[in-house]
């Protein structure tokens, strides 16, 4: 007997505008559990805005978000984090003055079960939790090949390494869903491939559900199970990568001159 799998996330008729300018218009799609869903579209299409709605940074004008079967008119960022929605930002949002390990430890905040008093006076439970968090953060740093940078101040590291730290911070808390905004931007080809491999592994080995914004079509076709194309805040196409690649609307609006490259 098979139970129909519940989608991890459903977006229903969501709209958002900034001072009268529509950033997202009546958008609906869904993300299955354990899939990598790529969000693509030209600059200003509303991709980042959508992620911001999904973890509560922006409040939509209309529509619903259904996360693991629960309805939300709006998310609160703290609530989203506690429910297991992890987030990476388009502009590096690391705490640049802190060490790599401390940055990753902040990613575990949603698992903290300490009372204020325990924390202030560093009672045994607090020290215990701190030790567990530190161990867990080291584990993830090893996974990303970052262990030798653990004590380094993040702001002093090369950009490509920083993006890895941000990814580590976004997944350290074993989120139910991770929202990644251009995690490969600004990297060279070798770095891109390395991170793409890590993302693929997180999805395959740990069953992580991922919504990923990425401009590099090659990477998208390699990684994604499902692609949603946005243009001027509207959904242009939605389906498996093969169908997206051949969709004439998508080619016209987004891929344009890259047609030949994609066909190749």
């Amino acid at each position: 007997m098979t139970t129909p799998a519940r989608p991890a996330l459903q977006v229903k008729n969501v709209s958002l505008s900034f001072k009268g300018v529509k950033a997202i218009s009546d958008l609906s799609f869904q993300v299955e559990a354990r899939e990598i869903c790529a969000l693509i579209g030209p600059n200003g299409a509303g991709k980042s805005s959508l992620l911001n709605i999904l973890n509560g940074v922006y409040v939509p004008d209309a529509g619903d978000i259904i996360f693991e079967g629960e309805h939300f008119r709006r998310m609160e960022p703290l609530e989203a984090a506690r429910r297991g929605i992890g987030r990476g930002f388009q502009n590096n949002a690391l705490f640049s003055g802190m060490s790599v390990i401390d940055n990753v430890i902040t990613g575990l905040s949603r698992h903290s079960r300490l009372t204020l008093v325990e924390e202030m006076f560093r009672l045994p439970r607090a020290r215990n939790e701190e030790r567990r968090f530190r161990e867990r953060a080291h584990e993830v740093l090893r996974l990303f090949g970052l262990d030798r940078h653990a004590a380094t101040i993040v702001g002093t590291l090369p950009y490509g390494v920083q993006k890895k730290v941000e990814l580590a911070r976004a997944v350290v808390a074993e989120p139910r869903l991770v929202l990644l905004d251009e995690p490969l931007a600004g990297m060279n080809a070798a770095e891109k491939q390395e991170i793409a491999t890590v993302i693929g592994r997180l999805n395959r080995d740990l069953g992580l559900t991922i919504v990923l914004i990425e401009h590099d079509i090659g990477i998208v076709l390699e990684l994604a199970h499902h692609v949603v194309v946005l243009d001027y805040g509207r959904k242009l196409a939605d389906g498996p990568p093969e169908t997206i690649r051949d969709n004439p609307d998508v080619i016209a609006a987004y891929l344009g001159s890259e047609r030949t490259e994609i066909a190749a």
Partner: protein
Amino acid sequence: MSMFLETLIGGLLAGTMYSLVAIGFVLIYKASGVFNYAQGSILLFGALTFVSLTGQGVPAPVAIAITIALLVLMAIAIEKLLLRPLTNRSPMTLFMATLGLSYLIEAVAQGIMGSQVRALDLGIDDLPIFVGDIMISQFDLIAAGVALALGIGLSLLFNRTRIGIQLRGVADDTRAALSLGIDINRIWQIVWAVAGVVGLVAGLLWGARQGVQFSLSLVVLKALPVLIIGGFTSIAGAIVGGLVVGAGESLAETYLGPFLGGGITPWFAYALALVFLFIRPAGLFGERQIERV
């Protein structure tokens, strides 16, 4: 030479008292981006509560504990009733709100505890100590020790504990901190409570110096030049800024005073701060604002 050293040391020690006041501002500014005008009133409230309680015969340690408990409750109330509803408002709005808050706190304090000047005896005799032929005030020395201990304690709190890591996260990028599941409302409560306790320590030391009266809240005016010199976001900056102002005032009073007809202390710190504004606008330890796009 010994006269110079004596003036310098006396100034540095007095400067740690300025540092103490400034640290309270830095904590809150760092965590919530608010220039908390009410810090002086909170300082006054702490000192006044303590002298009122001991005046009723409550033993000092108990009085301290009660005062701290009240300051913590006040921090929670401020966060819930003032900061939370004003989230995402401009820094100016928040500043105005703390201005209102300062009047509220002072009015309540005055209503309950009256407005007469009270002596505060911390049991520290202000006897001079001689090191060689240099005279040092024992009170200043102890006050400086307290300021130093507090500075070290706070930097341990912020660099070594998870609360500290979270606080620095909130200070650096509030949106990212929230998205990671850091409860910023809780962080604000903690920071305002800690700033309240720092204010209490400062209030007790200043109060012991000049009596506990309403003008005590005006020591905040001393903190402003310290913050300009040290930077608004650094505890180390607040300490160094306090030392610079203390030493500068003391040396200027002794060596420039005779030429300018005395009375330098009230304005010297501001003149010094102005010079710093020209040469280093972010302060000695301040972070340059980097625009995020």
